[in-house]
């Protein structure tokens, strides 16, 4: 145990280990991980790799056998657990709403434990329902079993956010909802995160979900080895080893397209003269995936992007494809 967290670290695990008694191998061994303020980090890996144990050590639902945990610069390894947990949002796959309390009372659980007055709690619950896209006048006084799975999960997120904690931990939060609702929830959650900028650590076994949501992704290998901890684009472009390459699976070049923005490509290339009049206009913030979709869909030869201060730039289909195939070149 040597390091101390850097100033912009919100969560810092310092060589934490978890050894369950009666088991030969440690569930997690000497793992160090630094997560920055406002960052959305996804822990992903095959089952038994220690990702969930790692998550649960952050709010000490699992007590580490060795190592230290820092939250916002403070060593919380031996702090009061209940106080610690009230300051950290927690969302689980099974949601775990209290079935005998109304939605509003469920959301207000942590504010209540922190001593907030009843009228304030109700007001807070309503704000949060609105934040997660549920109409307070309809849902505040309902009971959990009157809601669909997706609605319950939104309430679970609202409950975790109730005391405005800087950190949120999420254990496969979208795992129990059907695929269509899941994608919608994921996108809504990303939009919510853009507004609230919490430090989020999420566990999933689904690499596509990890790529879609994470600012950075920690890929765990067997034996709780941290195989790679990097941005989605880096993981797709430069997998650290064969394990990561296998885990990410095939089709990496195509999946990468949705992570690469048109503006990235423009920044990396010298201006190009329009090859033909047949170009589609597109916003610089769109993904290369979307750009290719438009070009192919309308049988155009390239895209026309308006760049502030530079006028409009043209990119040919060939350029887009080259960029997609060699993102490292584009990004460097």
């Amino acid at each position, binding site marked *: 145990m040597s390091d101390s967290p850097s100033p912009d670290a919100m969560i810092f695990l310092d060589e934490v280990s978890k050894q369950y008694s009666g088991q030969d191998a440690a569930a997690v061994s000497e793992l160090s991980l630094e997560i920055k303020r406002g960052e959305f980090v996804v822990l992903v890996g095959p089952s038994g790799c220690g990702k969930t144990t790692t998550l649960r050590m952050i*709010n000490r*639902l699992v007590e580490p056998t060795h190592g230290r945990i820092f939250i916002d610069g403070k060593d919380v390894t031996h702090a009061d*657990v*209940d*106080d*610690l*947990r*009230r*300051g950290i949002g*927690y969302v*689980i796959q*099974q*949601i*775990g*709403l*209290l*079935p*005998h*309390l*109304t939605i509003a009372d469920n959301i207000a*659980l*942590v504010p209540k*434990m922190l001593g907030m007055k009843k009228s304030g709690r109700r007001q807070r619950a309503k704000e949060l329902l609105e934040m997660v896209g549920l109409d307070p006048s309809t849902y505040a006084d309902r*009971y*959990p*079993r*009157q809601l669909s799975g997706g609605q319950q999960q939104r309430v*679970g997120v609202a*409950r*975790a956010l109730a005391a405005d904690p800087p950190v949120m*931990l999420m254990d496969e939060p979208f795992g129990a909802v059907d695929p269509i609702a899941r994608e919608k929830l994921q996108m809504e959650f990303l939009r919510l995160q853009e507004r609230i900028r919490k430090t989020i650590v999420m566990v999933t076994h689904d690499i596509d979900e990890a790529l879609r949501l994470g600012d950075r992704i920690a890929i765990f290998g067997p034996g709780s080895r941290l195989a790679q901890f990097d941005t989605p684009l880096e993981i797709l472009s430069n997998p650290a080893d064969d394990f990561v390459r296998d885990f990410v699976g095939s089709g990496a070049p195509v999946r990468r397209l949705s992570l690469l923005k048109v503006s990235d490509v423009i920044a990396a290339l010298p201006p190009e003269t329009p090859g033909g009049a047949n170009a589609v206009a597109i916003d610089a913030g769109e993904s290369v995936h979307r750009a290719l979709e438009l070009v192919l869909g309308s049988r155009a030869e390239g895209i026309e992007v308006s760049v502030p201060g530079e006028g409009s730039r043209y990119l040919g289909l060939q350029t887009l494809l080259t960029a997609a195939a060699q993102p490292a070149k584009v990004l460097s």
Partner: protein
Amino acid sequence: MSLVSYMEDNAGNLLFLAEQHIELVLISVAFSAVIGIGLALLTQSAPGVRQALLSLTGSLLTIPSFALFALMIPVLGLGVAPTVAALTVYGIFPILRNTVTGIEEVDPAVVEAARGLGMGSGQRMRTVVLPLAWPVILNGIRTATIMLVATAAIGAIVRGPGLGQLIFRGLERIGGANALEEALSGVIGVVLVALVLDLLFIVIAKITALRGLNV
């Protein structure tokens, strides 16, 4: 004299004894509930002890009630005390068992979520586990109560209060005037008391039902 006219003539005494009987059962069940629920909570983190207690209180039920009442005499003498003590012993098992089952049946995800939100163990018990286990616990208390209504009648052999007195007095002098009527009116009284108390529990269950569970 017919049974009906016998009961009419002795209505005052019958009602008095029925009231005694109900009181006796409710007091004993209250003790059983405190002990049964208390033991379940105390052994929360000691499953071995809990299992041993379940076996012990379960096997106490196999002692014939006649014998258990008699066994109380050297310790507690005659009258109310030995009757309540013996009935309390019988009532523990159904309540303990249902409390344990009720607690075990609470959805672990709900408890885990409460823990993750920073709810301490005592508060978790009070606001999550016990309310959700309550319907099962209440059913245990109800079972114990109905069981004790019947057993309480045997308490008359140690001069315990209640309708058992009629049954034993009648049987002692069977063949005498109105002996059979006396014994039978005691039996009918016991059945009616059981019905009344069962109804009481249906009402309690309705009143204490948690909103949100049956929607």
